[in-house]
């Protein structure tokens, strides 16, 4: 049915998964940093965090991807000679994809994490301080474990959106499953078949993620009382 293109598309699916996981790791780190900035009592740091979240969330992913991949490469090659570096710098689509997606979804996650941190009762951190914990220890031992539970629904959403956004990286030349389906469809003149196969693979990926994260949410909510309606 897939004219022998099945395995090459599965290879592409593996690349898509790697791209999504690495981008999400970077996005989580940037999201925590962004949330910390936005909750910071230092005013210019909070403003910096707000600008990051607002500007990135106001521009389409595709435009940001094109901006980083083509624009970033161009700027790098315009700036590098000023520092005496004369070779042409070539950014790999995979690296550009991880950086861009991580940077974009870091902004969305900073919003999720900020909300989760704010939802933890103040008394929790104060109790930690009263026990003589350092601010870093309060953050890691008291705030982060409670924040995770509150952030899981938003995290799940962002992960699903990010997984689907990886398809856009095929437009800057990454040979992910989307790009491979496009070439296979062009070669066999059966584009519908191949795009449908890719759609099914994405659906499997999102369904598995949904189940896994729902299980995680249940784990982290153990012992949390839910009021009966």
């Amino acid at each position, binding site marked *: 049915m897939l004219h022998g293109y099945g395995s090459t598309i599965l290879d592409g699916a593996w690349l898509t998964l790697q791209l999504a996981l690495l981008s999400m790791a970077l996005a989580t780190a940037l999201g925590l940093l962004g949330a910390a900035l936005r909750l910071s009592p230092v005013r210019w740091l909070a403003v910096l965090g707000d600008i990051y979240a607002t*500007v990135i969330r*106001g*521009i*389409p*992913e*595709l*435009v*940001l991807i*094109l*901006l980083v991949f*083509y*624009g*970033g*490469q*161009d*700027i790098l090659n*315009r*700036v590098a000679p000023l520092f005496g570096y004369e070779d042409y710098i070539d950014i790999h689509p995979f690296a550009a994809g991880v950086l861009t997606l991580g940077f974009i979804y870091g902004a969305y996650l900073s919003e999720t994490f900020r909300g989760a941190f704010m939802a933890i009762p103040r008394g929790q951190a104060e109790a930690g301080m009263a026990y003589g914990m350092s601010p870093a220890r309060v953050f890691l031992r008291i705030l982060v474990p409670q924040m995770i539970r509150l952030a899981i629904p938003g995290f799940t959403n962002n992960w*699903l959106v990010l997984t*689907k*956004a*990886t*398809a*856009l990286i*095929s*437009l800057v030349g990454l040979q992910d499953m*989307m790009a491979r389906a*496009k070439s296979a*469809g062009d070669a066999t*003149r*059966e*584009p*519908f*078949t191949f*795009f*449908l196969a*890719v*759609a099914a693979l*994405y*659906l499997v990926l*999102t*369904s598995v993620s949904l189940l896994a994260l729902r299980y995680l949410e249940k784990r982290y909510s153990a012992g949390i009382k839910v009021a009966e309606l």
Partner: protein
Amino acid sequence: MILDFSVIWDSLPLYFSGVLVTVKLLLISLALGLLAAVPLALMRVSRQPWVNFPAWLYTYVIRGTPMLVQLFLIYYGLAQFESVRESALWPYLSNATFCACLAFAINTSAYTAEILAGSLRATPPGEIEAAKAMGMSRAKLYRRILLPSALRRALPQYSNEVIMMLHTTSLASVVTLVDITGAAKTVNSQFFLPFEAYITAGVFYLILTYILVRLFKLAERRWLAYLAPRKH
């Protein structure tokens, strides 16, 4: 000088015509999407499994797959079938604007249906009981009580969906349309200034996003005033 914006200045008319294309795509797909979303949402809140299930499957599949795949399935994929190529619809289905609007409308209809269904489920039971006590028929209950209130309460979430759709329309540039992103692509291919071209497109999208956010704030003040926090 590292950056060169003089060319961008001369290309502004192209960007402005791109804004028109973006807004047109957005409005058409939102209108069609909302039209389809209302019956889908009603199906989603139904307790009959054979009414609920098809709508659930539709929204699940659409929300679980990338927009780009959906667009490619319609724009490139449908041409695979001879019956499609020979049908009366082919002049439309080979047209990029039509395919983009169709794909975007299908996509937003699934997300909007889930938003509306959530809003319908959150209707205070007392309102429904009161309507029944007044002797309203089911149709009248939906028309006069459930839908007007659910549509209003869906406004804040729907504004997010509209902004997501604004950003989604940038995919139209992939199927040859010259929207804002398409304009940036054209400028880049003419002058090879990718950074300046795309950052300008980004600014245009930021402005449009800001306008939409303001418009929805106004709409919320108009239609959700009764839910606003009380002022002292």
